[in-house]
């Protein structure tokens, strides 16, 4: 099971770029890296997923180095509404299925 490590919390200000790094030293060849966002009182919401190099969508970018032992979620020009918990997940195929184990996540606080 690929264990992930990410910072417990981060503080930022509106308009800044935020980079959250996740370490996953034991990532397996077939594993994808997925990031979720969770607001209070809501279920987690998919943000972005990648396998290698860089992925970008309308919300964020995901940078993955060649060794894939870490990944960085980049949120451009954050706003107050980006205050949430961000989870880094690395899939682990168990038999013919998949069990995603969430870590503690990173609490991002955006201040005005």
């Amino acid at each position: 099971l690929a264990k992930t490590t990410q910072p417990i919390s981060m503080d930022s200000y509106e308009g800044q770029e935020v980079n959250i790094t996740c370490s996953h030293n034991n990532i397996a060849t077939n594993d994808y890296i997925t990031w979720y966002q969770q607001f209070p009182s809501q279920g987690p919401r998919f943000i972005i997923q990648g396998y290698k190099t860089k992925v970008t969508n309308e919300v964020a970018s995901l940078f993955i180095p060649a060794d894939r032992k870490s990944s960085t979620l980049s949120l451009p020009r954050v706003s107050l509404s980006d205050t949430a918990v961000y989870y880094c997940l690395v899939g682990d195929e168990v038999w013919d299925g998949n069990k995603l184990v969430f870590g503690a996540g990173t609490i991002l606080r955006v201040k005005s």
Partner: protein
Amino acid sequence: GAGVSQSPSNKVTEKGKDVELRCDPISGHTALYWYRQSLGQGLEFLIYFQGNSAPDKSGLPSDRFSAERTGGSVSTLTIQRTQQEDSAVYLCASSLRAGSGNTIYFGEGSWLTVV
């Protein structure tokens, strides 16, 4: 449906009573997952289904917890003889298939309070 639907959204029950939580996954999704999240805590995996079978039940906290899925669609999580430590939000999620690379989508959760 358009998203994962869970019911009830809120449930207050007395200690010792049984509760049933329902999850209706996204249409066509074969994999279904149950997680639990206590106040201020991270997500705890409970069980997942591939079709109607549950290859991994290792996350169920005790034998008071059980889950089933029928017709490859709706799932029910049952908690017997509820205890106060069962109070949490129970989140259901589904994905097109199981396996790394498949995005899982969460419902809004069922908030359970045991008094």
